[in-house]
């Protein structure tokens, strides 16, 4: 086995990530009645709205303080206050998220002071304004997402009576995945607070009349009470501690924390359910807490059986797979596990995110495998030029990740299974299901079928070239 993990560059060629505020917008989309203001120049909001809109096929209204030259030189307080006022007038939000951009961070705006002065000046009470420092040079959209979830919890959670709910904190996944997680939690009889919950805000049903602020999202009251929950289930093993809402709830309010990976693949999904069982049984003896049951519902057991059945059915095809996997760290880890379980060799695992944790965790996974006989590279803080470079002279025949990976298909003829964010060159990015036993099987089928399609497309020509033209001796 061989490995490789180095990556320094003066220039990013074809990025594998987006910037922090985009992740922040996504997190705020999961709170009921929320509206986001980007403090900075106009383009940031527009570009991020466009990207999110294209993936989810949903209107994404994000305001900008539209900083101009004057605001940049003399401070953007007036612009931000006006933006808050107009947003309140047009959208009547229950909560406002203020995200900073590179510009606002660099000129050193004191957002906290500006927003509190705004609230005082207008004599507004009961409207939380949460600000999150998200400079574009501070990290990728993935870090922006986690930091924003963390800040939301820090701002809202308050001391409250113990209750029976479980906090479920999720990474940025498709709305289909989010919906599936809710279904699984319900099937397990678990009373939960899901954060952030953008199932309806970023995948709203058609309704008449049009809703400017789509219904749905985690209720603010629920977030306040996350501090009294029975436990927190944080689906994020790549989160830095400083951005972990689950850790905050544990440290500040003593809510037990269970951290699990995204339930993709059999092992991660098993771990998801066994953790749910553990949580359900956790402290059931203490008064007033009822057990949520310990056994898996029949339907879920069957789904697990069907996943295994499907894995066996397709394992030989999958054995031919050599994969390049890229995207947000949490997703990259989950997909790598799925590949390893099915005999697909993960050859390159890459993320544009800057967290070092993913590299360590993946390395641990490989260290556990004594018989992994292939070369592999783990690339953090990387770009597609580097990924493409790594693909050279290696028999990689499948790519798994978001739409920007189409460059691998274009330049190296590696077929792409679309997964993660953004999926902007196909419809239905929001409907891609990959979590749980059922989702994992569908995901695996997509991978296997792409391998098969590629094989069948080329095998006649390949065999002809190999054996007819080359005249086998």
């Amino acid at each position: 086995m061989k490995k490789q993990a180095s990556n320094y560059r003066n220039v990013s060629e074809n990025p594998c990530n987006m910037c922090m505020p985009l992740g922040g917008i996504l997190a705020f989309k999961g709170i009921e009645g929320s509206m986001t203001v980007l403090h900075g120049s106009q383009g940031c909001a527009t570009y991020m709205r466009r990207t999110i809109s294209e993936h989810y096929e949903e209107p994404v209204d994000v305001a900008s303080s539209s900083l101009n030259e004057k605001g940049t030189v003399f401070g953007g307080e007036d612009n931000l206050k006006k933006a808050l006022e107009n947003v309140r007038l047009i959208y009547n939000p229950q909560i406002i998220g203020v995200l900073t951009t590179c510009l606002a961070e660099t000129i050193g705006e004191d957002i906290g002071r500006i927003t509190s002065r705004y609230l005082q000046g207008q004599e507004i009470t009961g409207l939380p304004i949460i600000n999150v420092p998200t400079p574009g040079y501070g990290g990728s959209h993935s870090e922006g997402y986690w930091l924003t979830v963390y800040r939301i919890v820090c701002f809202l959670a308050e001391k409250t009576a113990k209750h029976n709910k479980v906090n479920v904190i999720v990474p940025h996944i498709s709305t289909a995945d989010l919906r599936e997680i809710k279904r699984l939690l319900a099937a397990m009889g678990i009373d939960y607070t899901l954060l952030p919950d953008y199932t309806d805000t970023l995948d709203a049903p058609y309704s008449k009349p049009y809703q400017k602020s789509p219904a749905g999202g985690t209720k603010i009251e629920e977030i306040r009470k996350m501090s009294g929950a029975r436990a927190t289930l944080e689906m994020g093993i790549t989160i830095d501690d400083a951005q972990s809402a689950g850790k905050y709830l544990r440290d500040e309010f003593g809510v037990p924390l269970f951290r699990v990976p995204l339930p993709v693949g059999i092992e991660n999904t098993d771990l998801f359910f066994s953790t749910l069982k553990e949580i359900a049984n956790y402290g059931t003896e203490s008064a007033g807490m009822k057990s949520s049951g310990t056994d898996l519902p029949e339907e879920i057991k069957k789904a697990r059986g069907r996943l295994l059945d499907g894995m066996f059915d397709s394992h030989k095809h999958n054995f031919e797979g050599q994969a390049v996997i890229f995207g947000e760290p949490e997703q990259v880890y989950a997909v790598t596990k799925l590949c390893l379980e099915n005999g697909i060799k993960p050859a390159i695992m890459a993320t544009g995110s800057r967290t070092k944790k993913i590299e360590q965790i993946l390395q641990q996974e490989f260290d556990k495998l004594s018989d992994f006989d292939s070369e592999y590279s783990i690339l953090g803080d990387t770009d597609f030029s580097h990924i493409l470079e790594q693909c050279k002279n290696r028999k990689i025949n499948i790519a798994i990740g978001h739409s920007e990976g189409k460059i691998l298909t274009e330049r190296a003829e590696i077929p792409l299974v679309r997964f993660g964010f953004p999926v902007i060159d196909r419809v239905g990015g929001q409907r891609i299901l990959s979590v749980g036993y059922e989702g994992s099987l569908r995901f695996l089928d997509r991978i296997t079928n792409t391998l098969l399609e590629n094989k069948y497309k080329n095998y006649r020509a390949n065999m002809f070239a190999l054996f007819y033209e080359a005249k086998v001796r």
Partner: protein
Amino acid sequence: MDARKSNPAIEERKHSILTKGEQNQQLKCNTDSVAGCVSQRACVYCGARVVLNPITDAVHLVHGPIGCASYTWDIRGSLTSGADLFRFSFSTDLQEMDVIFGGEGKLTRAIDDLVEKYHPPLIFVYSTCIVGVIGDDLEAVCKAAAQKHGIEVIPVQSSGFIGSKSAGYKAACDALLRLIQVPQGEEIQKGNAINYLGEFNLAGELWIIKNYLQRVGIKLNVALTGDSSYKNLKKATKAYLNIVQCAGSMNYIASQMKELYDIPYLNISFIGIEDTSESIRKIARTFQDLEMMRRTEELIQAETAAILPQIAYYRSKLQGKKAAIYVGGGFKAISLIKQFGELGIDVVMVGTQTGRQEEYDTINNLVSKGTVIMDDTNPSELERFIMEKEADLLVGGVKERPLAYKMGIAFIDHNHDRKHPLSGYVGAVNFAREVYATVCSPVWKYREQGGEP
């Protein structure tokens, strides 16, 4: 609060919205967006990037944090007949330490790396918001790099906050002017070929028009900037005439080229049958060649006759429908109003991101009484007037599309990443077919029901 919600009129926006026949004052335009109004506009950098990006063999290096490059990667549907380096996204990916200590060193190293790897004849370096704030000397870095590598390295002053998208157009034109400038003392040999300005070869549109011009005997010198290359752009000053399609982005360089190189220019449009025919006539007329005029009329007649049956068919299906328009520039809006007229469709709402006063005057003259005209609008105003005016379809870009669909109305993509041409006669048919496909789709018959079975 509920009353406010149903009528989200922001005081400062009032003069940016007019209803024809009801108000007489001029529409307020060409101003900064109002903070918090969720404008659909992008920034200065965006304006510069979209204009220069179709130059196919240049390295387009974004000096800034990763987002600016990442949101604009391969964003245009511009096609190339040669190099495709323009489809790559290069960024200095500034980090916190670069912001604190300055990014000039990293920029220099980035240019060195790119030259070594790609050997480009030309590099554009775009400045972004923070570069403007931390004060990196782009000019000096580019100059030094140009000397070191013996290629042209041109800075594009496009810090996001220094104005609106139009300021970005100007920054791009300034960069182009530097590129095409003739060395001192050198005499310009004028040919009889023409330049095509404000044309970005979306879905091959440049090639369509080039073919028409060739058929009447007019040679194309170079397009700015669709499918252009360093070598071709260097010939730009040798043209006999400049024709300008996207006036918003390129009128400025056209007037500069008139002043500096004595090249006259014509505003033309190849959107819609009427504008296409009239534009070819206008161009041919400048050559004062009777034979050319004859060929022009022949072409117009042949092309029009070939598509009229299809247009007539779509018109019969679309007659009496109502359209709303929200696009980037005034030029496009004007052409669209005429084109909808060709299809029997009435325009009930029309707005642009960066339209100029004279364009809004033209729009006002073209539309019927009661039509709402607006500058730099936002989703909530779009929603309100689409409802009030009972539009059947909206024309716009990516961000407007989900709004139209969520409201249950038809939508036309008139944006820069589309995959089908809308220029010329073939484009007119494509447009009519697209309008028909969306307005007359069977899906809308379910819209009244909402979620109720």
